[in-house]
């Protein structure tokens, strides 16, 4: 029998999957679920789509959120342990990473979270911050020390005071040495010290200017993101995904599925797929990979694109990571021109595409699973939301924002509204969303301790447990059916009123 780890992870030992799954809190979650949903008396029902092993299938969208993605694994671990598997997968940024791994590892009917945990245990998060050592140092200080800005201000004050004192010394001793001759030694000393001091300041300023130039040359990305690219590429290759074709094959290959109850849509039309969201800056579009590969390569050349690049593109947090580029797009080719025209209404396809984090446009792309043709859903669309908003009220006080706060609110209003708008109009989808509370964590803190990772995993597991207990498939199904029928009726009455 597995002994639960009641306390914290043993210090000094490398992080192992057992530190997560054998944690007392996680075991308690599973125990609670098994008690609420005993297999014989009251089994958990979340979907009408089943495979021959009794697994239930749902669609899953995972939100982006930097290192908070660890919590996503805790959430999916519980879902998988309760026999839930994923037909269609979508994600942005950190959600795209988890989505990619869930797609490529094993088969659809296999549980994947343990393998993902293993990959996380083996990954040194700090190595993802692969920029210049000076930039890494600054990022680390700013993220892990809340009072670092105060410290920097204090340093700058001292630099100014010392400069003033040295210049004052030059001035005073130069004047005095005309009357007191031996003071010329101090004058010389102060002149040399002043020069040396300003030399040091000059070197620091020159170094900073080099760093800024480097930032400009790298397309305003502090970290190249090469370490992540190599890591995710290795993960894909380790699971036999070398090309886009391999990735699509993994995403679409399904086991034998059947329906728990009859549905007019049947089971044959169900398909699996995977979607990574990214933002393309040249043409200013939201791109869904791998579906939209045909915009960047001719269909025959689709495998010249690297699937690891899609995930790299999706997680390119602007400024923190360099943009991901797809070069040499055959923009003169008719096939490509037609694709851009049909999809994006763009008559002039670009030669190069430059991608940044999909979270800029759609950090929680649950709208991908919206299908107006299906009246009665066969399976739900589950979503995992990472909620890192601070519970304090200061951010809601519009008069208390500083300049950064003001721009931050504007930026967030723009980037969140696209997904929020869909959920406002289709409220029933919210019933499938579990919101993981992570306000105590910084999404850019790549310097997480092992205990932080475990804690986030536990929070994810707890949220999933509460979600499954509260979720009622029949209610969800009925609500979605009613919603879809209402929407369709409204459409019909709208179109008839026009005539």
């Amino acid at each position: 029998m597995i002994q639960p780890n009641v306390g914290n992870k043993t210090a000094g030992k490398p992080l192992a999957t057992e530190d997560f799954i054998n944690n007392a809190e996680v075991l308690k979650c599973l125990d609670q679920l098994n008690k609420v949903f005993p297999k014989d008396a009251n089994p958990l029902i979340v979907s009408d789509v089943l495979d021959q092993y009794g697994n239930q299938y749902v669609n899953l969208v995972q939100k982006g959120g930097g290192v908070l993605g660890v919590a996503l694994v805790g959430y999916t671990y519980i879902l998988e342990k309760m026999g839930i598997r994923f037909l269609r997968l979508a994600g942005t940024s950190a959600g795209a990473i988890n989505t990619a791994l869930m797609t490529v590892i094993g088969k659809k009917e296999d549980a994947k979270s343990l393998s993902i945990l293993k990959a996380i245990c083996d990954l040194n998060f700090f190595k993802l911050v692969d920029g210049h050592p000076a930039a890494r140092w600054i990022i680390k200080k700013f993220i892990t020390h809340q009072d670092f800005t105060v410290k920097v201000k204090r340093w700058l004050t001292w630099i100014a005071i010392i400069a003033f004192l040295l210049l004052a010394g030059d001035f005073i001793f130069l004047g005095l040495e005309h009357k007191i001759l031996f003071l010329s030694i101090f004058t010389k000393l102060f002149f040399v010290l002043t020069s040396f001091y300003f030399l040091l300041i000059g070197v620091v300023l020159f170094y900073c200017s080099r760093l800024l130039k480097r930032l400009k040359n790298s397309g305003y990305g502090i970290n190249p993101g090469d370490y992540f690219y190599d890591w995710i590429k290795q993960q894909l290759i380790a699971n036999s995904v070398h090309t886009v074709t391999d990735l699509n094959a993994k995403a679409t290959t399904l086991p034998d599925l059947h329906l728990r109850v009859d549905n007019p849509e049947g089971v044959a039309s169900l398909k699996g797929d995977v979607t990574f969201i990214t933002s393309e800056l040249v043409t200013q579009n939201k791109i869904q990979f791998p579906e939209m590969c045909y915009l960047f390569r001719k269909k025959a050349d689709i495998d010249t694109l690297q699937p690891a690049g899609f995930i790299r593109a999706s997680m390119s947090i602007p400024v923190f990571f360099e943009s991901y580029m797809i070069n040499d797009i055959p923009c003169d080719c008719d096939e490509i021109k037609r694709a851009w025209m049909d999809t994006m209404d763009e008559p002039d396809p670009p030669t190069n595409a430059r991608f940044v984090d999909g979270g800029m446009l759609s950090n929680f792309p649950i709208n991908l699973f919206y299908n107006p043709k299906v009246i009665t859903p066969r399976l739900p669309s589950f979503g995992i939301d990472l909620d890192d908003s601070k519970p304090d009220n200061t951010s809601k006080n519009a008069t208390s924002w500083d300049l950064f706060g003001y721009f931050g609110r504007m930026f967030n209003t723009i980037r969140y509204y696209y997904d929020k708008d869909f959920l406002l109009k289709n409220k029933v989808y919210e019933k499938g969303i579990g919101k993981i509370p992570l306000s105590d964590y910084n999404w850019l803190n790549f310097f997480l301790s092992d205990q932080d990772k475990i804690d986030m995993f536990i929070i994810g597991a707890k949220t999933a447990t509460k979600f499954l207990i509260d979720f009622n498939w029949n209610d969800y199904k009925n609500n979605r059916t009613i919603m879809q029928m209402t929407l369709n009726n409204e459409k019909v009455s709208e179109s008839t009123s026009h005539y």
Partner: protein
Amino acid sequence: MPFYFDFNWLYFCIAFGVMLLLHLIMGVQSNNFFTKHVVVRKFSILDLEFPPSAAEMVNFIKDIFSLPAAQAKKTSFALRNQLLLDFLFMPAFYGSIFILSMKVSMKMVYFGHKFFAVLAWIQFVAWLCDIIENIYLLNKIRPEPTVSNVAAFKSYEALEVLKWGIPLLASVCSIAAISYFWLVGLYSYDSLPYLVIIVIEIIIYFAIKKVTTKSEDKLLQKFLQTDMENKPQVNPSN
């Protein structure tokens, strides 16, 4: 061998002039320094001298060779030539600072006298570091360079600190001391013509520099025109 030398300012003017001339030639060579990291862009020799890590240095060199063949050859040729020309630049550069520090030393007394003489002599240490650095880089600049081990790279970083730190320290301290002598009137009239020569040399240097320097955009445009003749291959990493 004597520890102190009383040089004539004329030697400094000659060394300084040669240094400026060679620097101009090296500047023209650097017009061909291009690399391809995400996009084609210009780089400076400082990018190679101060890489963040051994791996990034190698990546940087590989990026140069990922340019279309003709351009990669042009850049690597210019880079190698600049490193070779640097061997001629070194005696002029370190020699100038040696003379300058020694001149200051001869005007100083007690500790200052010794301190500036030491600053002058340690220019040879910096020169040696520069020679080793250039040989290291000349060996590295090839299509498939190997990543240096940690010890080698740390040594390279230390060389860079010494190579830049020693002459900077000596020149700044010497200029500060000379400024002091100027302010208190401790100079001879005989040295004033040399000051005029140095100022003229600097003016000529900046005038030629202005004529020979082209904007990065223009250089890139010129490069891209050359590039058109050598169509790049599809990058499989995409």
